């Protein structure tokens, strides 16, 4: 573990700075919207950056994995659990439902991610770089069309099971659902950092990212490591899908396109391959979007997001936090 102290301090300073600035600029109510949206973008961006870190593939199907996750969570809520648009007031029952939905979706999406890697990307691992990129776009279309065929192209309602209770905090009224969402996202991010930094498999991931051949010579099972990376990336996107459905209440088969594009921007913004950077990038994009809405420029919010991306690429081509070769994965 050779963590550069000044680097770590810089990250902490950046996070605190972003939080303070956004709180002051946006006010409590919009701060809440910003954190919720940021949590979704960050969770998707993590998967982008992990996959890029390990096989240098920009997985354009990742946004659609998020979308499929949202549909799977909707399916779990409506079919096996048989729930409808009625808030569950009993906290124990609610906890049980949330655990089933979150872990069920994450597990299923993880498997989907691993299967996609096995059949769409592994056969092309030694092909020229453009080949897996095109395949990723193909996978994206396949996922969209499967969902469209099963669930129709219309917006689908997700049962609103989470009670819309609000708490008076910090001089505003904060939704319990928002707190839950941000907490889940932070928990998953911390778990990911610990997994990558402190476990055997995490070390295998980092070494594979650094030098695949050398890692293989040292006895790392490359195929297994890459499969696990895809599993985790897709599971995180799935958790973002659950959150999307619970919070926004309406999902559509083409949801993944823009979400994926913004999460990709977040990953590049933070320094692609760098997990901390991706999470911060997600929050930066959410901040820009919410600020645009606050100032009445919502029709320009996408322009603002991509302008910031261009500026960062011009002045800091490796992103806000850089590639962080040593710890990428």
């Amino acid at each position: 573990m050779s963590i550069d102290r000044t680097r770590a301090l810089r990250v902490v300073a950046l996070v605190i700075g972003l939080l303070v600035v956004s709180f002051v600029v946006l006010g409590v109510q919009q701060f809440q919207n910003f954190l919720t949206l940021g949590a979704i973008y960050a969770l998707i961006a993590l998967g982008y950056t992990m996959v890029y870190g390990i096989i240098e593939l920009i997985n354009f199907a990742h946004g659609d994995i998020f979308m499929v996750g949202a549909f799977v969570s909707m399916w779990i809520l409506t079919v096996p659990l048989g729930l409808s648009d009625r808030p569950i007031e009993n906290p124990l029952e609610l906890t049980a439902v949330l655990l089933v939905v979150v872990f069920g979706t994450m597990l299923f999406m993880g498997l989907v991610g691993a299967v996609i890697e096995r059949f769409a990307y592994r056969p092309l691992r030694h092909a020229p770089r453009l080949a897996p990129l095109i395949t990723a776009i193909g996978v994206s279309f396949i996922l969209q069309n499967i969902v469209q065929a099963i669930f129709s192209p219309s917006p689908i309602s997700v049962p609103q099971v989470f009670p819309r209770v609000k708490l008076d905090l910090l001089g505003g009224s904060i939704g319990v659902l928002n707190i839950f969402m941000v907490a889940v996202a932070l928990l998953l991010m911390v778990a990911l950092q610990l997994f990558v930094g402190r476990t055997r498999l995490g070390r295998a991931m980092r070494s594979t990212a650094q030098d695949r051949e050398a890692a293989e010579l040292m006895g790392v099972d490359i195929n297994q490591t890459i499969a696990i990376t895809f599993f985790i990336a897709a599971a995180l996107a799935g958790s973002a899908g659950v959150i999307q459905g619970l919070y926004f209440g309406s999902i559509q088969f083409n949801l993944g396109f823009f979400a994926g594009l913004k999460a990709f921007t977040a990953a590049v913004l933070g320094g692609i391959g760098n997990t901390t950077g991706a999470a911060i990038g997600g929050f930066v994009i959410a901040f820009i979007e919410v600020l645009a809405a606050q100032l009445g420029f919502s029709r320009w919010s996408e322009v603002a997001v991509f302008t910031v991306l261009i500026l960062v690429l011009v002045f800091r081509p490796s992103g806000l936090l850089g590639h962080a070769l040593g710890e990428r994965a």
Partner: protein
Amino acid sequence: MKVTNIGALGVIALVAFSACSSTPQAGGGKTIKIGTELPMSGAETANGEPTANGVKLAIKQANAKNEVPGYTLDVNVQDDAVNGAHDPQQGATNMHTLVADASVVGVVGPFNSNVAQAEIPISNAGGLTQCSPANTNTGLTYPPDSLKYRPNNPDKINYIRLAAPDSIQGPAGADYTFNDLKAKSVYILDDTETFGVGVGNSFEDQFKKDGGTVTKRDSAPKSTTDYTPLFTAAAAAKPEAVYLAGTTPTGMGLALKQGRTVAGFENIPFVGPDGIADLGPGGTTGATITVAGAGAHDVHGTVAGIHDLPAGSTFVADYTAEYGKAPGAYSAAGYACAQVIIAGIKAAVAGGKTDNAAIREAVRAGSTAAGNKFDTVVGSISFDKNGDITTPYMSFYKTDLTAEGGKGGWVYVKQQAFTDPNAQ
């Protein structure tokens, strides 16, 4: 996208080919077609399908009565929805297909104003009549804007519509919000599209004229997934109502659903144009009440057409018997558009026209000819020199979530007659 275009080109080629080689059938008379160009799939189902059903019913009944002797009427159905939402480019492709089909002598559609903008230049060049049951954007018929859609034949009006334009719909919604709902301030959100921006502007002007305040005006494209920050920002000025200038498939349904969760917007009335008041009951694919769920309470909307059909009309009963459900917001208008085209065909055939191209031109010229009146399901109507209906109506509806056996539905409030917008 590319694949679709190539496919569509193939269709055009096929249609053109079959049109050249087809020979009139003996005995059963010649087949002549009315096209429908509407959004039929995905979130648009609640808009397009009931309208197309109105056209099909009119054709079926005309055939049963042998309305045009020697001819069998048929329909050529086109769908301009791509990925579940109306698409101007797809509309243009469909219009090329319809123009190329020589047996098509008139088209009912489109449903959406930006689709009409893409289609009118094509149908105008082909001399093909388009009767829109639902388009409301003012510039589609009003000069000088309307002239730019007819670059080839500026003097040949081929586009007529039954719906009252937004110069009536927007102000009618504003008056209703100010006088009937007694809201003195309003937050306006539009979807950045031709229709949404246009109706939003005319609503805003009239609401201010009435003495009301517009607390904030926002525009959000249909790619928006999170409307909560917009509503959170708008809550500060405490508006007493919200005007959703747009359609449910372009994000306004989602805006309604999410807006309801923001403090200050839980119980105030949401008002919208006909893009919101689709009259689809809860559970209908893509309908506003389905998309917004429990958030669809206290929603009010205008429909740019007549509600109370002239006394003695059997349309609602006939429609319900044929399709097993109540008509949609523009089913009667679709039916009436088909009647206008059928009347044109009948007059042309009676006048000795036998060639499809001649019938097509006669239908077009007759639709806006001075003094020409059409007996339709919505009454005796005529079209002015710009193609606008001379007797526009506006109907008002609101949601009732206990209606339709608890699924939720739209209930009729009132209707209002207006004078010819071009005569003012």
